[in-house]
């Protein structure tokens, strides 16, 4: 849900040193469990379907916890609280859409994608687009869009891993990148997404428990939510305004992008294929939403709690907002709780890397060859090779590309939203959508995001205040999708296979 922006928190390398024996010990224990899970998973990974979608065999609880874990990444614990400390309640608009996105995804995508997996054994998100429109071109183009987004996500998460591992072990950011990537690569290549899912389950459970505990520490130290609010209102009332320090349009624009854009995030959507029994989807939105609330308590609690401590003079103003969580944990909670959170952040970035590695490998070994009319005959072997290539490329990019890596990480969410939401989320539910509409919307979302994010990064041109590239690109790609589908509507009915039509109707 919120992986992109928060990584910026870690990219600045601002985490204070955490090299204390207990924190190091907990982190080592954490990594030992990850290795154990990957060894177990590697023995159960025998086919490409096992590697990419866990053989369509994950249970409800495991999938839910893993999905929560992938959704929040390390951002929920570091970048998010820092953002609240910095801009007030406006930062909540990144996570507020979670109240509707899980059930939205369940209605719009979960059933149809899981049934497409059932009918056709699909394993990737572009697979679904290819099947819906009977179009290898649409499949290949959406695969390329995903790959472009993944390059940024992977590189930024690799750098974030380096920062966190350096803070815990004091090995330097460069070595941190390679150690983190090495561990992630080992379990990704060996156990594929199965290892990733069960590492996520382990990590997500600890993150939820740690988040709840930290939240109660915040309330206890701040005198409850009433006490925290009173303290902040006396010094900085705008902080607790409904938009924080942002304009209403900026906050509402974020809500739009994070609500509707959630339907195009491959790391979340891809998981619908993995559920063992489609009937278990019944409880998936409720469980996932409740899990997210638990994990996000820290996001809200530490953000407002640290602000209250700072304005009341109990804590010195932070040097950088992203110090909010490390400072609070090291000053106000037992070191074991701090150790759990920091290890969780390291594991969360590794989990995000694993998830994107797997999706990227699927694009390279499956979607692009299918688009070129040359499907691979050994997707498992090539999936493992591609995973390694992606991991090494991302690590090199993270280590040597300087500020470019931050740029690459900025637009992932918006790129996925603008390229995949119309063709996938709307297209799987509307028979009037056409192949031309899908291709045009994917191409326009990709072109617009790349063009305007690049112009903004190089300070050549920026949109006016209140307009984000991700929001504008999503709007344009939706309108292009509807417009081109309307113009080519005579082709709509003939473009759907009978089994896909049934999946779209039920």
């Amino acid at each position, binding site marked *: 849900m919120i992986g992109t922006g928060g990584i910026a928190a870690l990219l600045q390398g601002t985490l204070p040193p955490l090299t204390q024996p207990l924190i190091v010990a907990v982190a080592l224990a954490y990594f030992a469990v990850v290795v154990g899970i990957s060894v177990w998973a590697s023995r159960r990974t025998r086919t490409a379907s096992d590697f990419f979608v866990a053989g369509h065999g994950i249970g409800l609880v495991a999938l839910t916890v893993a999905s929560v874990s992938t959704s929040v990444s390390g951002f929920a614990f570091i970048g998010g609280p820092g953002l609240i400390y910095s801009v007030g309640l406006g930062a909540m608009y990144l996570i507020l859409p979670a109240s509707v996105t899980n059930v939205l995804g369940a209605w719009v995508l979960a059933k149809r994608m899981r049934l497409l997996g059932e009918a056709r054994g699909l394993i990737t998100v572009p697979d679904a687009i290819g099947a819906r429109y009977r179009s290898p071109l649409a499949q290949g183009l959406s695969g390329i869009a995903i790959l472009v987004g993944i390059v940024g996500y992977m590189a930024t998460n690799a750098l974030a891993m380096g920062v966190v591992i350096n803070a815990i072990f004091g090995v330097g950011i460069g070595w941190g990148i390679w150690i983190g990537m090495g561990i992630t690569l080992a379990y990704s290549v060996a156990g594929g997404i199965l290892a990733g899912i069960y590492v996520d389950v382990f990590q997500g459970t600890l993150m939820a428990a740690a988040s709840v505990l930290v939240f109660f520490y915040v309330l206890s130290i701040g005198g409850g939510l009433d006490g925290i609010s009173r303290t902040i209102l006396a010094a900085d009332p705008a902080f607790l305004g409904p938009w924080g320090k942002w304009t209403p349009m900026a906050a509402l624009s974020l809500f739009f992008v994070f609500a509707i854009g959630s339907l195009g995030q491959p790391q979340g959507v891809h998981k619908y294929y993995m559920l063992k029994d489609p009937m278990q989807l*019944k409880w998936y939105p409720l469980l996932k939403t409740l899990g997210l609330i638990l994990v996000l308590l820290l996001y809200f609690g530490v953000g407002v709690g640290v602000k209250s401590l700072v304005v009341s003079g109990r804590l010195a103003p932070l040097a950088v907002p992203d110090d909010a969580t490390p400072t609070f944990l090291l000053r106000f909670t037992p070191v074991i709780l701090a150790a759990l959170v920091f290890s969780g952040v390291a594991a969360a970035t590794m989990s995000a890397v694993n998830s994107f590695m797997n999706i990227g490998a699927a694009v390279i070994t499956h979607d692009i060859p299918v688009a070129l009319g040359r499907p691979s005959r050994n997707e498992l072997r090539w999936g493992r090779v591609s995973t390694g290539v992606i991991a090494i490329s991302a690590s090199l990019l993270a280590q040597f590309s300087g500020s470019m890596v931050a740029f690459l990480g900025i637009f992932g969410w918006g790129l996925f939203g603008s390229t995949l939401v119309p063709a996938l989320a709307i297209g799987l539910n509307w028979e009037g959508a056409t192949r031309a509409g899908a291709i045009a919307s994917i191409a326009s979302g990709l072109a617009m995001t790349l063009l305007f994010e690049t112009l903004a990064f190089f300070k050549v041109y920026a*949109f006016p205040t209140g307009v984000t590239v991700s929001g504008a690109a999503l709007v344009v790609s939706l309108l292009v999708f509807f417009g081109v589908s309307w113009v080519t509507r005579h082709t709509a009915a003939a473009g759907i296979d009978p089994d896909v039509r049934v999946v779209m109707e039920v």
Partner: protein
Amino acid sequence: MTRSIAVAGVALSTLMIAAAYASAFLGAPGPASWAPWMFVLGVPGAIVSVMVLGAARGRRGALGSLIAPMLLVGLALATGFGLALALPANESESTRLVLGLPLRAAIILYGIGLMPIVVLPVAYALTFETQTLNAADIERVRRLGAERGAGLPEATRHVAAHRGEAR
């Protein structure tokens, strides 16, 4: 019919948001004063329309009893955003708190951040077999998949088998 209305709803809501963005390019400085109101209506409109599109079932796109919770949440989102925008920005030390927060923040956090959680996932679960998926649907799709698989060329079946697909 339901799906057509939902698609029209998504398109209309998107156009409202597009108009709000466009006003930022035309006016100076920043967006027009009415632009946030386009979001207040357009965002809930887009969310509920997409929801209806996804939940519509069968050729006629029946929604059954889901229409009530969906409209309720859409209304809550629009009202919540609208109140936050319309109520005076008078937060201060003496502001009365609602569940620990100033009124406008409480409307957003509790009304928009928490209320839909109580309504939508529960409505989804309670109507799951009748409105979303049942054993007959799965059987129907599996049968069609098997029929299609039997008709695939030999080379395609080889790739499918290698991927570990049962069908």
